[in-house]
């Protein structure tokens, strides 16, 4: 047994998800839903208990809040006069979905069709649309493009 390997006493799970962000929280829910698989979800940041996370306009307060934000910087950007560009990224349960601008925008159907045309079978617009709908709880109601039974509320601004 070397220092680099697992010990028999280490805990075991079926799946280990590294990062409880916009994607990791979805995975943790779906992979644990049928009760057959054990899941460990690791998050570098703290619980999402900062009150500004839950107030939409609070993103302004979290923009440089290092307790929940990685606060990365780019290297000096050659075409931007050597300036470094600040890169806020969520570091808490929910990841950047806990600190972002909350906009629900899917992109263009051409984006996904281009992915498919580049050889990514299964990722064309018709392939991904069902998953946008599955995620969604659209307050305007369901239609050909929108779903209402999913976990993610999508609302008009009040």
């Amino acid at each position, binding site marked *: 047994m070397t220092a680099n390997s*697992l*010990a028999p006493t*280490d*805990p*075991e*799970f*079926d799946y*280990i998800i*590294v*990062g*409880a*962000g*916009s*994607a*990791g929280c979805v995975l*943790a*829910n*779906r992979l*644990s*839903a*049928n009760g057959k*698989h*054990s899941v460990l*979800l690791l998050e570098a940041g703290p619980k*999402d208990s900062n009150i500004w996370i*839950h107030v*939409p*306009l*609070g993103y302004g307060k979290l*923009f440089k809040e290092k307790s929940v934000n*990685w606060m990365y910087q*780019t*290297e000096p*950007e*050659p*075409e931007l006069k050597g300036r470094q*560009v*600040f890169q*806020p*990224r969520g570091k808490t*349960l929910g990841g950047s*979905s*806990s600190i*972002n601008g*909350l906009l*629900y*925008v899917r992109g*263009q159907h051409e984006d996904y069709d281009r992915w498919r045309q*580049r050889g*990514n079978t299964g*990722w064309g617009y018709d*392939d991904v649309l069902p*998953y*946008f709908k599955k*995620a969604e709880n659209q307050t305007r109601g369901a239609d050909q493009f929108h779903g209402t039974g999913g*976990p*993610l509320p999508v*609302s*008009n601004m*009040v």
Partner: protein
Amino acid sequence: MGLFQTTTRNGRRASTSVAYLGPAKGRGNLRIETEALGQRVLFEGRRAVGVEYRQGAQLRRARARKEVVLSSGAYNSPQLLQLSGVGPADLLRKHGIDVVLDAQGVGHDLQDHMQVRIVMRCSQKITLNDTVNHPLRRTLAGARYALFRKGWLTIAAGTAGAFFKTNPRLASPDVQVHFLPFSTDKMGERLHDFSGFTASVCQLRPESRGSLRIRSADPTVPPEIRINYMSTETDRTTNVEAIKILRRILNAPAMKPFVVGEYDPGAKVSTDAELLDYCRERGSTIYHPTSTCRMGNDALAVVDQRLKVRGLEGLRVVDGSIMPDLVSGNTNAPIIMIAEKASDMILEDAR
């Protein structure tokens, strides 16, 4: 042009933690560990078998019987792969990391949306600036939110948006506009003391590509991020043309009742060369990094169409880093879609 929808419920943010983790937290088969920083994926040969992570002073390990899934985002997923010995071999060796797989594509092809903002002086005291800078209005806005979950505190990063083409021959819009009912010299800093609002342009399909490389074998050291914004002629021209079109929108007759004039960059910036200089001087991000662990079939693609890391077993990447290229819009909804689709594939493969 239209009003944006948001990931909110009754005036509160619906992060994926609220929407997905909340309902799952009580499950006996789901364990959530916070303040647990992934140090590296553990391999037996080319099979991922577990993860080493640091929680406070404790270095811990856990075994994955089926799979390890990295969903740490476009910066931290490739960083963690490189720290684990999966990445460009020369880079890994330079930092004394044993090479599990020489994968030149890990951290390659980083993309982001750049944002260039125009600030307008508003002729009516209807902007967030007016509320924030007025103690009574500010208090009322706070009370309105506390009581009814309505009003200014429910505002997202953009209330209205628009998509347009800088060239009529394009098949679909190449620029997105975000309208913000407030203004500031720099995002994250205090709002102007005059009535103001902001509109920004964002080139949707930049050609520029950057990279992400570890700076150290220490997982707590931030990676080296190069986006190379505006590094192609198309990207520079598109930004300049986009600002010109946005200016036409902001000076349209319908805007007249609300507009005093342009505050930033202002009339002193008008030629193409001056506009490009303004983009260089003030351009920033709209926070959409992707494509550092790109899906595809070519030599630099990191994951396959089932989001499995090519050349390894038991390891997937599921987040914005797998986008073959950046989508023409905000990235959060597509990333949630990617995770939904990946969940189905993982459960299918478990059968």
